[in-house]
Structure formats: C-alpha cells, structure tokens
C-alpha cells in the first residue's frame, strides 16, 4: 500500500486561486513523487468554480478537496482551523504544507497545536529523508544567520509552512486529470466569535512579499519626494517598493513596506537596495533574496557584502540612468 497522501493548503482570494498555491504544488509534487503517493490540494472558500479548482489539477495535483461555505469566503481563524482539523482527522494525510502567509502562519499553528503535530515555520527547503521517509524541513532562523533542518519523527501529519517565492510556481499542462471533491462542513465547524467588518486595500499597488522584484528605499533618499525615483524603477521592472525602517519612520513609505527584523521578510528574485546601509536588522528581512544589487555612495557600506553587484555612487544619478537603460533594453 502506498503511503498516505501529501496535502497542500491552497489559498484563494475572492474566489480565485492565489498564485502562492502553485508554488506549493511545485513543492508538494516533488514530495509526493518521492514518496510514491498522491498530491491533494485542500482549499477553503465559498463555492469556487470547477474551472478554478481544475487549475490546481492542471498544475500537478491528483485531487482537490474544496471545503465550501459562505463563512469560508475570507479567512476567519476559527472556521478555518476547525474545518482543516476535521479534514485531517478524517483523511490522515502524511504531510501538510501551507504557505507562510498571514493565513498559513495563523491556521497551521492552531491546527498543529490541537492535533499535537510537529510544525516548522517558514521553510525554504523540503526533502524526503531516504531511509525513514520523513520530511526534512530546512528553514532560516535568527535573521537568516542560522539554517536549521527539522523533522517530525513520530507525529503525523508532518506540517510546515513554506516561504513564498522560495520556489517557482508549477506550470500548467493540458490533459491532466484528477478528482474534485466538494465538502460542505457542518454548521458547528463554522461558528466564529470573530467578524470581518471592513477591508482597506493596500495603497501600494503590489505587496512587497508578492513581488518578484523589490526596490528598497533607504535613508539615502533624503526626502519623501525622491521615492518617486524608486517607483519609476519599480514600474519598469514590474516590482514593488520596499523600505528600510529609517525610511518608514520618516513617513516616506507606509509600514507594510518595511523590510527587516520588525517588518517583513521577503525573498524576491531581485532585490535592489538603494541608499540602504545594510544593518543586521535590515538584512534579516532580505538576505535570502535570489539576486541582490546595491547602490550606495559609501563604498564601505555593509550591504555590499551581500550584493552580487554593487554600484558605489550617487543614487540620484544612478537610479534615473538605470531606469532609462532598463526601459530601453526592454524596448529592443
């Protein structure tokens, strides 16, 4: 008998499957293949269409399990926790991975607590251990200064949240087939002491943790008006604008843009740090980015130690020049 299934917790926003789910499929598919078992996506929401659910199969799942109720339309801690728990208890997956998003990082510890499962946060590497078949979960800690590999030898499911952008989304292929199961949770699992009363979309068009490219603004920008220079570069690169704490404390950018120890952790494909010195607190939030480029007038700035290419010069000359040249390169 093949081992129990590998599950991913897919996410949806307004009835559409969130892109981070496809990254989970990349991870989950690899693990399921190594274990010789099925990959199943669990998705909580309000009556998602078959076409939407099918995208999960097109990208590599063997099965989709959709818990559907109006109460599951937006994340609410209690119904999400209770419904996911009920499904796990019923079907006993061997592995459950979720994205390290506001949803994943909230519901997974609740579920793991209740089921006494081991849970590893914010993993950047997942592998199956050859002899035991256990899941090896590797994650950065202490601001990225330490990596730890963790396993859960006895308890099941083995649970982990995975850092967004730490792998590519699985590509879609036509002709894949799989089973879609819809489950209508009973009312007692949907009770909530929490009500969502309001939602204000972020001012910045793109959230830094969802972006492939982040341009970081530091104190070197001197004043709020100059942030426009970073926005222009972000525009040509389809990226988002992040900030050091100095830039946020001065009110140049809102707090959701803050990268670092007391802000967000991001891992984009490209991080361009501009007028940012590279303090340990800032590095804690970005040093796992795939490619780092730094622009700083101080040739001794610590950020250069983490960058692939460093430009030692004035950002006010270099940024417009870079923006123009990238725009030109994209034209040709």
């Amino acid at each position, binding site marked *: 008998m093949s081992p129990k299934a590998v599950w991913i917790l897919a996410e949806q926003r307004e009835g559409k499957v969130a892109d981070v789910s496809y990254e989970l499929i990349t991870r989950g598919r690899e693990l399921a293949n190594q274990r010789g078992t099925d990959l199943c996506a669990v998705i909580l929401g309000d009556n998602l269409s078959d076409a939407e659910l099918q995208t999960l199969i097109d990208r590599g799942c063997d099965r989709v399990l959709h818990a559907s109720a109006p109460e599951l339309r937006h994340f609410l801690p209690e119904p999400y926790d209770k419904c996911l728990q009920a499904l796990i208890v019923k079907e006993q997956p061997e592995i459950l991975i979720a994205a390290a998003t506001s949803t994943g990082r909230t519901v*997974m*510890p609740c579920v793991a*607590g209740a089921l006494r499962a081991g849970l*590893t946060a914010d993993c950047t590497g997942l592998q199956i251990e050859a002899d035991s078949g256990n899941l090896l979960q590797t994650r950065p800690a202490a601001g990225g200064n330490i990596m730890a590999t963790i396993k859960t030898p006895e308890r099941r499911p083995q649970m982990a949240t995975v850092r967004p952008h730490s792998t590519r989304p699985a590509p879609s292929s036509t002709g894949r087939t799989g089973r879609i199961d819809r489950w209508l949770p009973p009312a007692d699992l949907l009770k909530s*002491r929490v009500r*969502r009363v309001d*939602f204000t979309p972020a001012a910045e068009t793109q959230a830094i943790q969802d972006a492939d490219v982040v341009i970081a603004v530091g104190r070197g920008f001197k004043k709020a008006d100059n942030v426009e220079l970073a926005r222009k570069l972000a525009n040509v690169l389809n990226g988002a604008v992040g900030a050091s704490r100095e830039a946020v404390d001065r009110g140049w950018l809102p707090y959701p843009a803050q990268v670092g120890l007391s802000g967000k952790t991001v891992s984009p494909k490209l991080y361009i740090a501009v007028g940012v010195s590279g303090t340990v607190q800032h590095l804690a939030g970005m040093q796992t980015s795939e490619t780092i480029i730094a622009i700083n007038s101080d040739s001794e700035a610590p950020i250069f*130690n983490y*960058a692939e*290419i460093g430009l030692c010069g004035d950002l006010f000359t270099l940024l417009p020049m870079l923006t123009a040249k990238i725009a030109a390169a994209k034209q040709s």
Partner: protein
Amino acid sequence: MKIIVLIKQVPESQATRMDEATGTLIREAASSVINPLDLHAIECALLIKEAAKEKCEIICLSMGPPAATKVLREAMALGVDHGVLLSDRAFAGSDTWCTAFTLAAAVKKLGLPDLILCGERATDGETGQTGPAMGAFLDLPVISFVSSIEQIAGGWRARRMLEDGYETVEIDGPALACVLKEAAVPRLPTLQGKRLSRAKDIDVMSAQDLGVSQDDTGLKASPTRVVKIFRPSHLKKCEKLPAMDPAQAEKAVDRVVCLLKEKGLI
C-alpha cells in the same frame, strides 16, 4: 479586566549561539533583552488599561531560564502589575508545541484573562507559532498580524495587516492577539517605575506547580527534532563598481542591465 502579555527573553544581538548537539538555541547568552515585538505588546496592554473604565490588571508571563526575571522586571518598570516566570529544567528544549502547551497551562492556573497579547514573532526562533498554538489550547480566537487593537463593548476590535491590505475584525469575548510593531510605540521606563519594579515579587512556577508532566514539555516531548544546524553564507563576492563620475556610472549601469538580462529578469 485582566490582560496577560507573553514576553520572551532573546539574545540582544543576532549572533545567536546554538547547541550543536541538541540543535537548540542557547538561551543563557550574556546579554538578553525583551523580544522587540513583545515591547509593542506590553505597550498595547498599558494603553488598553489607561483607556479602560474598569480596573485592569496586567500580568507578564515568560518561560525561560532563571535569568529571565530580568526581562520581567523591565516589563514591570514600564507599568506591568505582575511578573510570572515559568522556569524548570523540565521545560528545556521545548519546541513551539511544548512552549505553547506549557504557557497555556500557566494561563489556566492564573485564570483565563480577557485578552492575551504576544509578539508576532521572536527574533531568535522566528517562528511566530507560539501565540497561535496557545489559542488552540485555550480555545481562544487567534487574531494575528495585529496593527491596532482596542476594547469595545463585549470584546475587542482589531486591525490586521494582510498581504493585500488592512482588515478590521471584531471579536466577541476574550481573544489572543499577536501584534506587529505598528500596534503601539513602546514607552521608556521611568525612574519611579524602576524603583517600584524592584519592590515587586516575581512568581516563579515549576512544571510541578503547573501540573505539566514530562510527557508534555521539554525536548523529549516535542514533536519536532532539529536534525542539523548550519551557518549559511549569504556573503557574496561582490562585484563592486565605482560609479562616481558619469563615465563610470554609465559603465556600471550597463553591467547591471547585462546581469539582469543574463538572469532573465528583463
């Protein structure tokens, strides 16, 4: 009203040491501080207390080595009423499941409060799991990524920072909230506060006091095991390009554009 704030003692610098044999963090590091985000949680509690019409008691709860009394005293110097330390060899090596279980057992002993506040994550382990896992043991709704919180009739109103914006939620009855830096600006201790804090007692509780058995706390009871720890090197051999004059700048920028093309980023 009663509020419990969970505070963790963390090493002051990021140069965290680890016990290579057990793979756990060494907590006896020389200079330890309150986990930065927990200061914001304490401030939220103090502001709620100041705004409340009823009497309000704030308890800070920490699990750690005896030296963690220091951070509890610091909290009391800020205006926290009581400090409780969970300290026992039996707790050593607890993962987040066991930590949350043990802290939850203490909360039950102290009596379920109207609000539990914790930091969104700690700077050492950086899991952000302890708070939400406690919610499971205490049957409290978990309000995570909180950027502001206030008392309303019958419960709480909180703003949460999500990936794509801010959400406002209202909670009936007690809750557990994990706060972000934005939630409040921590105050500094006053001289009088420091003096008062020295006079206050800190309750120290052991596994036996809590009635927590070895099967539920400490390294052996933890579902997760650290297999290996290593220091990654993010240090790159940086290609440093002088770009002070226009000609250099032009060349340097061309090099960047070239790299971006190579990597398929443009």
